[in-house]
C-alpha cells in the first residue's frame, strides 16, 4: 500500500506520541504524580491510528477505559490530556474525569469510558444521527476482547444492523479481559464469524502493523460511509503493560512481555517497512521522535504547573442549569 509522504509522517508521529505519552504517564504514576486507576495503551497504538487516519474531525469515536491512544489519534490536545491525568482544572475535562473519561466534543471524541462495552450503544446513536442528517459521518466505537461478551455490545451490533447506521465496531483483541484470556472468556472458536452473524462484514487486521489496520479500517469505514450499514474491524494486538498500572500480570507466560515489545511493536514495524520501501528515511523518523519527546516533556511541565481545582468546582457542570438544591 502506498500512502502520501505527509500521511506516513503523520501516522508515525501519532503512534510515537501515544507511545511516549503512555510511557511517561506510567513513570509519573510510579512517581506518585498521577492518582486513580490508569490503563495504558502501549503496544496497541497502530490500531487507534490506523482507524483514525480515515476519520475527519466531524466523525466520532467512543473509547474505553484504555482510551488515551484513541483520543490522541482522533486529535485530542496532548497537553490538555496530560493536565487531565494530573487532575488539573485546566485539563480537558477540568480534572473531573481523569484518565478513564478523557473527552473532547470539538474533536468528535465522545469520551473514554469506564464501563466495559459502555461505548458501542452510544456509537449507534451517533451513527443514527449521521443517517438522519445524511451528512456522511461515521461513528466508530473502540472496544476490547472483553467487551464482546457484554449484552450492550450484542444489542448495539444488532441495532446498528436493524437501523442500517454507519457505525464501525473496532474490536482490539489484546487477548486479556483484565486477567482472563480470550480462549476462556469467548465461548466460540471464531469470534469473527460470531460477529458477522449479526449481519455485517468484519475486516481482520494485524494490530501491530499500521498498514494492516489502515487497510482493514479503510474497508470498514468505506462500507459504513457509503450507506451500507455497520461494519467491524478485528485487530489482534498486545498491551505492553498490565490491565491497570500496578497489575502483577500473573497471567503472562514467561518472556511474553519481552516478546511483545520485541516482535509486536508497531513503531519498529513501521520503521522496518519504511526502510525497505525507502518512502521515509530513518533521519526523518528520528526527527519526529525528538519532536515528540519535546512535546511530552512540555505536557508534563505544563501539567505540573497547571492550576489545581478548588472545592467550589465539585458542584459545577453537574447540569447546564439547575434551579434545585445543587449541593448538600
Amino acid at each position: 500500500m502506498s500512502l502520501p509522504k505527509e500521511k506516513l509522517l503523520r501516522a508515525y508521529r501519532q503512534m510515537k506520541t501515544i507511545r511516549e505519552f503512555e510511557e511517561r504517564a506510567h513513570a509519573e504514576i510510579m512517581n506518585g504524580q498521577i492518582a486513580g486507576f490508569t490503563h495504558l495503551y502501549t503496544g496497541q497504538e497502530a490500531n487507534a491510528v490506523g482507524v483514525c487516519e480515515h476519520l475527519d474531525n466531524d466523525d466520532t469515536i467512543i473509547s474505553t477505559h484504555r482510551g488515551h491512544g484513541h483520543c490522541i489519534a482522533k486529535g485530542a490536545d496532548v497537553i490538555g490530556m496530560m493536565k487531565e491525568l494530573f487532575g488539573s482544572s485546566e485539563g480537558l475535562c477540568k480534572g473531573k474525569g481523569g484518565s478513564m473519561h478523557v473527552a473532547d466534543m470539538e474533536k468528535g471524541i465522545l469520551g473514554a469510558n469506564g464501563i466495559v462495552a459502555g461505548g458501542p450503544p452510544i456509537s449507534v446513536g451517533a451513527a443514527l444521527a449521521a443517517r438522519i442528517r445524511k451528512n456522511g459521518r461515521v461513528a466508530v466505537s473502540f472496544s476490547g476482547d472483553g467487551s464482546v461478551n457484554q449484552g450492550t455490545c450484542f444489542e448495539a451490533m444488532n441495532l446498528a444492523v436493524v437501523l442500517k447506521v454507519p457505525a464501525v465496531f473496532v474490536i482490539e483483541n489484546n487477548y486479556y479481559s483484565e486477567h482472563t484470556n480470550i480462549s476462556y472468556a469467548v465461548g466460540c472458536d471464531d469470534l469473527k464469524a460470531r460477529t458477522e452473524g449479526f449481519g455485517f462484514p468484519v475486516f481482520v487486521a494485524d494490530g501491530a502493523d499500521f498498514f494492516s489496520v489502515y487497510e482493514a479500517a479503510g474497508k470498514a469505514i468505506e462500507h459504513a460511509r457509503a450507506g451500507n450499514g455497520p461494519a467491524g474491524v478485528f485487530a489482534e494486538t498486545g498491551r505492553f503493560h498490565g490491565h491497570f498500572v500496578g497489575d502483577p500480570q500473573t497471567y503472562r507466560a514467561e518472556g511474553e512481555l519481552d516478546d511483545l515489545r520485541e516482535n509486536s511493536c508497531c513503531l519498529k514495524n513501521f520503521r522496518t517497512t519504511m526502510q525497505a520501501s525507502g518512502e521515509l528515511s530513518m533521519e526523518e523518523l528520528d526527527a519526529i521522535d525528538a519532536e515528540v519527546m519535546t512535546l511530552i516533556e512540555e505536557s508534563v511541565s505544563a501539567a505540573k504547573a497547571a492550576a489545581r481545582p478548588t472545592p467550589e468546582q465539585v458542584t459545577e457542570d453537574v447540569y447546564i442549569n439547575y434551579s434545585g438544591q445543587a449541593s448538600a
Partner: protein
Amino acid sequence: MSEKTMRDAINEALHQAMAADESVFVIGEDVAGCNGSQGEVGSVGGVFGVTSGLYKTFGPDRCIDTPISESAIVGAAAGAALVGMRPVAEIMFADFIGVCMDQIVNQMGKFRYMFGGKSKCPAVIRFASGGGFSAAGQHSQSMYQVMTSFPGLKVVIPSNAYDAKGLLLQAIRDDDPVLFFEPKALYQEACEVPDEMYTIPFGEAAFVREGDDVTVVAFGQMVNRAAAAIDALEAEGISCDLIDPRTSSPLDEAAILESVEATGRLIVVDESPPRCGLTADVAALAADKAFHALKAPVKQVCAPHSPTPFSPELEAAYIPSVEKIQTTIKELMAQSR
C-alpha cells in the same frame, strides 16, 4: 483471635462458608483469574484479592471465573439460588450495578413476592463500593443507598473487618437475596477478628461510641471518620452516640430512635449524594417518629448532589471529612434550643 484486614476477614468468611456448605460457590470476573492464560489459574483472586485462595482450595466448580458479563453473572447467581444453591457472586465495582440492574432489581429482588412467597433466592452479590481512590464517576459510587429503596433486597454495609466477617456469614446463611457492599477504602483496615465462624444478625445496629449530646448515625466508610470526629470533641465536653446500622435494609430503627430520644440531636453521615439517600432516609425517620424529642434540626453530612470527581483535591472536598463532621456537630450544639 488475631488482627485481620477487612479483605482477609471477608476472605476467611468465604473459605469457611464454602468448607461448611457445599452449596456455596463463588462466581465473578477474575475471582480465580488467569483462566485460559499461561499463568497459574487462581493467582488473582479478584481485582482486590478478596477471593484469593478459593480456587486452589475448592477448585474450578466452586470458584468460577466469568467473562465480563455482569447481567449474566447476577442472573446466574439468582437462577442457581432459586434452585437451591447459595452463590456468592462478585461484581467488581458497585458502579457496575448500572449494567446488571434488571437482574438484581426486577428479577432477584422480586421473585419471592411475585411468586406468592413460594420461592427463595439465597444469593449474595458482593461489590467494592465507595470513593477514596480518585477513580472518578464510574468507579467510586456507593450505590447501596439506591439499592436500599428496593423491597425484597437486603443491603449490608460493613464498616470494619469484624463486622464484615460476621455479616457475610449471615448473608450467605440468609434465605433472601443480599447485596453486600464492601467500602474499598477499608479493605486494608484491620481489627481483631475471631478465627472461628460467627454471624451478626441483620437489622441490629452497633453502638460504636456512647454519649449524651448528639446521635451520629454513620454508614460504611464514614463510621471511622465519625468516630475520629467524636473522639476529638471529647476534650471540648461534647459526647456523642455513634450508631453504625451495619445493614440499611433492614434498618435498626429502634436503636436510632432510642438514641435520638435521649440526645435530642441527630446527624446522619454518608459518602453518597443527599437526594433519596440514606441520610435523608434516617432524617425522615427521626422527623416522623422522634420529632418531639428534637432540640435542633437534623443534619445530613454527605456528598453534594454531584457525581464523584476525579481530581484528588475535588474528591477530598466531595467525601465528608472528619473536620466537616466535627464542625457540623459543633454547629448543631450551638443552634440547639
